[in-house]
């Protein structure tokens, strides 16, 4: 009988396609919008993801997110190093600098300055050259996407990416590319340049204080949260674990930008439209077939079997609809790979969209089941 339930559903092609399209649309919108939102979220703390060696970030107490630079005193580094439980602590610079390209155009870049001696805080993946090459004079490493787009030269023959060995001016200082790296895209999609801390402060416009963050690592077998508390207590600065720093950044974007509300509205709209189209069509399908359910009841089908038939129909369209929607969303992600569009679809988004689609169809199924349950088999003779 369960197979017949599916055949009844698929046989009514107009309604079947209507239900599946409704659910596919909902699945696509929910997954795609959530994936873009998640991609944007990841970009907000991309630097934290890329800088994986430290487990403690020390900042000015008023810093609200990773891009909110409120420089520290150079001496703060020594104070942090003196805290019990700290294995190492190094300076970290982050700022924006104007780069003048060979073509003469000016491009704003994010400059990251990492510890001169240990090179801790470098890019997560080198595509060309080595991190050690930063020890050369005026050396910089640029990110691959930046080198191929905003830092590239454009001629009549096409685009020539910035390459190892090329030079540029950073705030009127000569710099030479010694490597190409891969990093997470920044929120503003600006090119990222890595150099040593001292050189970064030399390139940067003169400031009284230039230490953006102190990045540190706790000793093994020491509670990192307690070390953070200790740092805050003894230095008056604020120390975050890497995860807390990500959360702080995320919290800032949630509170102070409309991104989450905008995408949230789109996701909710997808859900509502999906419910309206698919739910309504599924209900109509059941109502149109109510006579057949009554016949089954008259012929000896109990309510349990009828419920299972409706539930199976709902589950079936859920799987098909979700599959098509998530398939198109994944295709969208594949096509947008390497573009400016942020798109990230981790497993939990697949599960989340599946749960949403299931919720849409099961809630419709519940209403349908109520209708089927209350059928009077006597209508078969009417």
């Amino acid at each position, binding site marked *: *009988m369960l*197979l*017949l339930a599916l*055949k*009844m559903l*698929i*046989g*009514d092609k107009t309604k079947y396609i209507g239900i599946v399209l409704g659910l596919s649309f909902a699945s696509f919108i929910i997954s795609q919008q959530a994936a873009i939102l998640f991609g944007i979220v990841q970009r907000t703390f991309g630097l934290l993801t890329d800088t994986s060696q430290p487990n403690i970030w020390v900042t000015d107490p008023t810093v609200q997110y990773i891009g909110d630079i409120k420089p520290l005193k150079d001496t703060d580094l020594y104070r942090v190093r003196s805290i019990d439980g700290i294995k190492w602590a190094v300076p970290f610079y982050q700022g924006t600098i104007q780069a003048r390209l060979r073509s003469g155009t000016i491009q704003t870049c994010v400059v990251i300055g990492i510890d001169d001696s240990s090179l801790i805080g470098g890019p997560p993946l080198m595509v060309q050259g080595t991190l050690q090459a930063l020890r050369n004079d005026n050396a910089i490493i640029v990110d691959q996407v930046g080198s191929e787009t905003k830092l590239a030269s454009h001629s009549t023959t096409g685009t020539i990416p910035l390459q190892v060995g090329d030079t540029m001016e950073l705030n009127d200082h000569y710099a030479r590319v010694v490597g190409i790296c891969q990093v997470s895209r920044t929120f503003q999609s600006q090119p990222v340049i890595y150099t040593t801390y001292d050189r970064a402060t030399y390139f940067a416009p003169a400031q009284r204080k230039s230490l953006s963050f102190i990045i540190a690592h706790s000793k093994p077998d020491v509670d990192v949260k307690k070390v953070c508390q200790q740092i805050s207590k003894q230095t008056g600065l604020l120390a975050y674990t890497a995860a807390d720093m990500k959360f702080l950044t995320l919290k800032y974007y949630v509170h102070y930008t409309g991104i989450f509300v905008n995408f949230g509205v789109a996701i909710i709209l997808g859900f509502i439209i999906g419910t309206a189209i698919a739910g309504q069509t599924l209900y109509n399908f059941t109502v149109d077939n109510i*006579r*057949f359910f009554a*016949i*089954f*009841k*008259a*012929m*000896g*089908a*109990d309510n349990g*079997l009828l419920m299972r038939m409706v539930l199976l129909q709902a589950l079936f369209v859920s799987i098909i609809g979700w599959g098509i929607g998530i398939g198109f969303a994944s295709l969208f992600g594949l096509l947008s790979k390497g573009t400016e569009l942020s798109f990230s679809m981790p497993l939990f988004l697949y599960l989340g969209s599946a749960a949403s689609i299931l919720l849409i169809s099961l809630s419709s199924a519940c209403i349908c089941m109520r209708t089927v349950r209350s059928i*009077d*088999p*006597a209508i*078969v*003779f*009417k």
Partner: protein
Amino acid sequence: MSPSPPAIICTAIHKSYGKGASRFEALRGVDLSIGYGELRLLMGPSGSGKTTLISIIAGILTQDEGKCLVNDVDINHLPDRDKTLYRGKNIGFVFQSFNLIPTITNEENIAVPLLLQGVQRKEALLRSQALLEEFGMGNKVGTFPAQLSGGQQQRIAIARALVHNPQFIVCDEPTSCLDHSTGLKIMEILKGLVVNKKTTLIVVTHDPRIIPFADSIDQLEDGRIKQ
């Protein structure tokens, strides 16, 4: 040889719909007795209570008063689940407008009562196909109801009603949607069931053409059987 007891005995059946001023009394003390292997016609004008009576006999409506024993079982006083099981096993239905499911094949339509009783799909379809052959419609395997004429659809509906070998078949206006010759053919099939399989048939009809097929006729009027 003593006569066999009746298959269906209904005594003082009352049934009404609605409440207060809108209350309508469909049956007003109906007494009825139908023997095994009998083709009984229930005739009468619209609103006389024919459909209500067969619904009570088939166990899909419960009478307000009176008693209805089908095969010695007071079906309407069984718990819901038992009543459903009893109906599924012992009663077949033929409807005026066939009520075939349009999106499944003819043999699947016929197999529905078997599938509801838990018969394996393969076995149920084999039995359905055999019945299609028996009804001279072997070439209709794999086709859908919409591809059949009215008479052929009613034959599928009859095959569905008897595929599980029920003791009783209730038919609601089985010939009203059919032309004269097709209607007669359908009645020949139904009569054949009575003669060959000793199935008890209760047929509600307005159609006087089928009177010659009946073993007996009850005429209902205003909720009572006219003597």
